[in-house]
């Protein structure tokens, strides 16, 4: 998946949530999407997911313009938001079967058991999602996107509810997706963890793209750009 964003902007009423954002990402890129609260990270993720329409600009996926109605392109986009996007009164298995069927990937139904085993949920496959803890729900979301294999995977604060083993599971999944050529976007405030995984960092501030660089060691430019968002008195070294 090759992702290009040109002059993307989104306004809610008179307020610009995102303004003139452009970048170009080749296949396999893992992007850390950083910035303070209200910077426009979630808005950018929702635009990339096609959940909201841009006020201006365009998103190009593998050379084709991405519009909200484009079903083929939507089938290549995944959005992992821990604890969300799951029906509480359906069982773990029913949720997976439902979404696999919606994504027209019925072949993946045969892999449900194996995937649930990988994320440690096989023994709970017949339980309602409402009975799962937040961490377990996040594991179920990981299982869902493992089965659906999106070309563009968007993650909104994935680390908050996962235990150590869950984080290992998530990161090995994201690395595998990157190796397969997927573009992965991770919006998070767990900077050290997400920087350890990413191949590129993007910083948004007040709706504008203020930093966009491939990862390097040492990374002085990032340290300078990100330093201003740290709590007073704290310093940062990537």
């Amino acid at each position, binding site marked *: 998946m090759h992702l290009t964003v040109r002059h993307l902007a989104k306004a809610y009423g008179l307020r610009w949530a995102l303004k003139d954002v452009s970048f170009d990402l080749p296949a396999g890129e893992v992007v850390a999407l950083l910035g303070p609260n209200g910077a426009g990270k979630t808005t950018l993720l929702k635009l990339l997911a096609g959940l909201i329409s841009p006020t201006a600009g365009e998103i190009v996926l593998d050379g084709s313009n991405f519009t909200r109605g484009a079903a083929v392109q939507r089938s290549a986009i*995944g959005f992992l*938001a821990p604890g*969300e996007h799951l029906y509480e009164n359906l069982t773990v298995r029913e949720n997976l079967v439902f979404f696999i069927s919606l994504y027209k990937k019925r072949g993946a139904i045969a892999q449900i058991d194996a995937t649930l085993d990988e994320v440690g949920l096989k023994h709970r496959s017949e339980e309602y999602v409402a009975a799962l803890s937040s961490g377990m729900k996040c594991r179920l979301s990981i299982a869902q996107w493992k089965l659906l294999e999106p070309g563009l995977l968007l993650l909104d604060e994935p680390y908050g509810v996962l235990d150590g083993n869950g984080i290992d599971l998530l990161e090995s999944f994201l690395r595998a997706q990157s190796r397969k050529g997927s573009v992965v976007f991770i919006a998070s405030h767990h900077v050290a963890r997400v920087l350890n995984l990413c191949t590129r960092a993007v910083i948004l501030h007040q709706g504008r793209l203020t930093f966009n660089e491939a990862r390097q060691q040492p990374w002085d430019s990032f340290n300078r750009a990100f330093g201003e968002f740290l709590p007073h008195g704290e310093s940062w070294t990537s």
Partner: protein
Amino acid sequence: MDFLSQIFLLLRKDLLLELRRRESLLTMFFFGTLLLFVFHFSFDLAPERVAEMAPALLWLAFLFTGTLGLAQLFEAERGNHCLEALLLSPMDRGALFLAKTAFNLILMVLVEIVVIPLFWVLFNLRSWDVIPNLFLVTLLGTVGFCVLGTLLSAVTLKARARELLLPLVLFPLMIPVILGTIRCMETILRAGELGEALPWLRLLIGFDVIFLTVGVLIFDWVIEV
């Protein structure tokens, strides 16, 4: 997956959730029955007057009961941001509109199957032979209510006080359906057949077809997270 399979998949999910939660159907059923008892104790009508009043009273009950169902229509999707998950998927959004309309229609028809005979029993009406025709007309009116109601339910999804806003927007737009259904029912109760109510029947069918088509075409623009 073709369009019909998507509708079936979404409808099956909604019916399964309703079977487990039993919120909408039970609430609608008890409210509809309760309204009939209120009408029964409020109006002391002679049988010939009841036949005149029956269509309006029945449709009052269906409107209020149906509005309760509409208020719950997207409830399963509001929790856990499941609507986002549906809109993110490659599903045709017209299929979501039709599945929600069909789900609401099934609930309302189930309520009507109980409410109409109960009305006949409570008001001691003897003309049981007209009930199949009444069901047919009621079904056409209910389709119109569900189509427009689903569309407006999606429009008001993010509005504050949507439970208040929905009937305020819906009821004025429902006037052609309410009028058409009541006139058809009056004719059936008076003459035993549709006869002179055919223009109203055509209006009902036209309303259903137009709003069903419009709903499928514009639902993508109506619904946004």
